[in-house]
């Protein structure tokens, strides 16, 4: 076997191997069943996704130190969205996936004080310091937003709006994909933008 052919073969098999062991991506296409999970909330109670079966659920990945998260909390945009939809019976779960020592990490006490300070109204704050929920959903950034339909399938995955920036001024005039999808779900219409580009700070995976 000549050397060139050997190198080519070697490179190819190495590449194939790399793909085989590479990070596996959860199939997070809207329409797919939402991955089940259980996590401890800021009150110390274990919460299971199945507990909310039959309701529309919003998952919001958050990290209070991230400038993109600050944009939406500092302006009151995120709180307004939470209030609008939890008032209508929707389950809103904020997920904190930062491990201890990283930006955004919160134990139950800190998570509760953050909620109080920011006048936020999530149904619950989930503590995910080992990123198990984040991995199951393939969450990459804060804020990464998901909507799960009452039948347990994913209706939306992506960014909060279409203006990927840290500037508060951009909220005005941005199209809020989460609000749009929730309105459409409520009126029984198909979600017009079921998957969008999430923007923000990287989720702080420990490994």
């Amino acid at each position, binding site marked *: 076997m000549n050397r*060139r052919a050997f*190198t*080519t073969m070697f*490179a*190819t098999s190495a*590449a*194939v191997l*790399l*793909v085989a062991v*590479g*990070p596996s*991506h959860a*199939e*997070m*296409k809207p329409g797919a069943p939402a991955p089940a999970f259980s996590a401890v909330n800021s009150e110390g109670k274990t919460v299971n996704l199945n507990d909310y079966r039959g309701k529309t659920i919003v998952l919001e990945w958050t990290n*209070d*130190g*991230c*400038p*993109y998260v600050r944009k939406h909390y500092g302006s009151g945009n995120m709180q307004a969205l939470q209030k609008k939809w939890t008032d209508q019976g929707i389950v809103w779960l904020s997920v904190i996936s*930062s491990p*201890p*020592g*990283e*930006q*955004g*990490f919160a134990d139950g006490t*800190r998570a509760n004080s953050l909620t109080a300070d920011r006048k936020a109204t999530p149904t619950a704050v989930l503590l995910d310091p080992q990123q198990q929920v984040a*991995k199951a959903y*393939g969450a*990459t*950034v804060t804020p990464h937003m998901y909507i799960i339909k009452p039948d347990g399938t994913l209706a939306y*995955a*992506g960014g909060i709006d279409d203006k*990927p*920036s*840290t500037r508060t001024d951009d909220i005005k005039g941005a199209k809020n994909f989460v609000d749009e999808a929730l309105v459409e779900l409520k009126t029984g219409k198909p979600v017009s933008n079921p*998957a*969008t*580009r*999430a*923007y*923000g*700070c*990287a*989720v*702080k*995976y*420990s*490994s």
Partner: protein
Amino acid sequence: MLLRRFYLALILVLCLPAITPSYAPAQDAAGLVKAELLAEPASIAPGEPFTVGIKLSMREHWHTYWRNPGDSGEPTQVTWKLPKGFVAGEFEWPAPSLIRVGPVASFGYEGDAILLARITPPRDVRSGTTVSLAADIAYIVCEKICIPGEASVSLSLPVSERSASAPTNAIFDAARSKLPQPSPWKATFSTEAKAITVSLRAQGDAIREAQFFPYDNTLIDNAAQQVLRTDGQTTQISIERSQIAKTIPQRINGVLVLQEDVGGTIASHAFAIEATPSAGSAAGEGGMTLLYAVVSALIAGVILNLMPCVFPVLSIKILHLTEHRAETPRRVRLHGMAYALGVLACFTVLAGVLHGLRAAGAEIGWGFQLQSPLMVASLAFILFALGLSLSGILTIGTSLTRVGGSRLLQQGGLSGSFSAGVLATVVATPCTAPFMGASIGFALTQPFVVGLAVFLALGLGLALPFLILAFVPGLQRLLPRPGRWMETLKQFLAFPLYATVAWLIWVLSFQVGATGLLAALAALVLIAFGAWAYHVSQGQSHVLGRAFQGVAVGSVIGAIALAIVIGQSNPTGPKAEVSSNAGSDAFSDQKLNALLASGEHVFVNMTAAWCITCLVNERTTLSTGAVREAFASKRITYLKGDWTNRNPEITRLLEKFGRSGVPLYVLYRANAEPVLLPQILTQSLVLQALEKI
């Protein structure tokens, strides 16, 4: 001891974020990114564009983002504040790096990055004054955490009559070397359900790694490992598609970064890529269905009838039908079927040839017939002869003009109709490429039978107008009465054919260069001359007639010979560009030794077609005006050795300099030790080396 203390400090620094409460106020971004505005010339001149750079220097481990930031972050934004009349062009972004944080992949810059832009001052800016350029920069800088930052930068430049262009500005030289180069290879892409594969016609044997960065931020799964495949001819990168991409675009633009092994060291190269759908990939989302392909081929076939190359043929055939109104309806129907059969037979052969060639490994798609200069020239000659016959120069005769076509079209027999169908298909081929791409592209990726169905649908479409006319007697009655107008129309119809010939010759000019073009035009003259000689021979006495016929046959043979010459001339494609030898002599031991013995300076460049580093060095440095001028002014002979196929003389020279592969750059100065240049060249580096002579 010192080392241990250093490690201790390092650990402390690394752990600091863990110790400090994470709700501490955000760090100051200004301490993490230093922003500067730099200008290439020391002074500027009215109306003369110049280059400026925004230099961002990131603290270690921190990064800012490329134009497509990938999974997180956002691109750095620059808002110019320029004096009145100054216009700034688009920024050129250096090739990005892939920055992974866990399963999140971003595209950006660590260390230093310089964004370049051209600024054009107005003509009326007064020399002797000083202008101030300023910009506001907004960026996100991230390590594990992200911090938004802003900076205002400015610069004052004197205005003089002529711009003081520094000979080469090392900073800008280096910045340019980090910009993606225009790709020397044609890029295509194909899409599968979950992946996009970008293919380059590049010999990638020495490529060890490849990473494609698309401009579109929703196209690919940024974090997925990209798979590199290379063989002797092509380099392919398979990339997992993003789950949020809605549709596949018609073009995929981005930057491809290749790591090439050059004799043990790794050289990194970035190319700007614009990939078009490959012949095998149906354009647009998903696969094309057979039904869709067949229907669109049928429609395309019908439209083909209106093309300038086909329309005259069809018209003549219809005229012929009007002349023979006396024929029974049954006979007319038979004519229609014979014509359709001719078309279909020709398409079957074409489909067979295409599939056969592809099965044999040729990388061809539809339009292949126009990639061969021989084919283009032959088509031009046939159409020209056909045009001449319509013009009335080649109307009579028995055997020869059968080839010319006019006689074919007028033959009463069914074989005449069959031949007309074949001819219509042959002359249609140059016109099919532009809008048949999608269907035929689909046909070529399918098993032969399915592919044949698409080709036959195309043929049926081409034959359809004539078929309908033959089968619907009512329509025939609508045709005008025959008369003298038919001859005039026939003569007029020659001109669309001449127009097609003109177009084909233009296509040919890109393939064969000036000499080939001359050969093609000479062949056209010969064909016209031959046609005239044949025409004259008809009215002459036996002997003279024979003589003229001989001249005519000779001219045709001459034209065929010229066509063969054209067919063998080198196409000037990107391939030829790769191994461009302009301004250099071919290397041989003997030549080098002779030059050195006579006290000449010699620059030796050892290269190979499959060496990407060599190619990049030649494009960015060795073939630039500045370096060529320096070669000329210093009287340096430029020798180039091609190691594409192993060559023992070159191998020996490589070994002499301790190298096992190309590129190798050596500057031999008269009466001094040779200087070995690095494997990655920049213009200033070469110019500096040449200065020493």
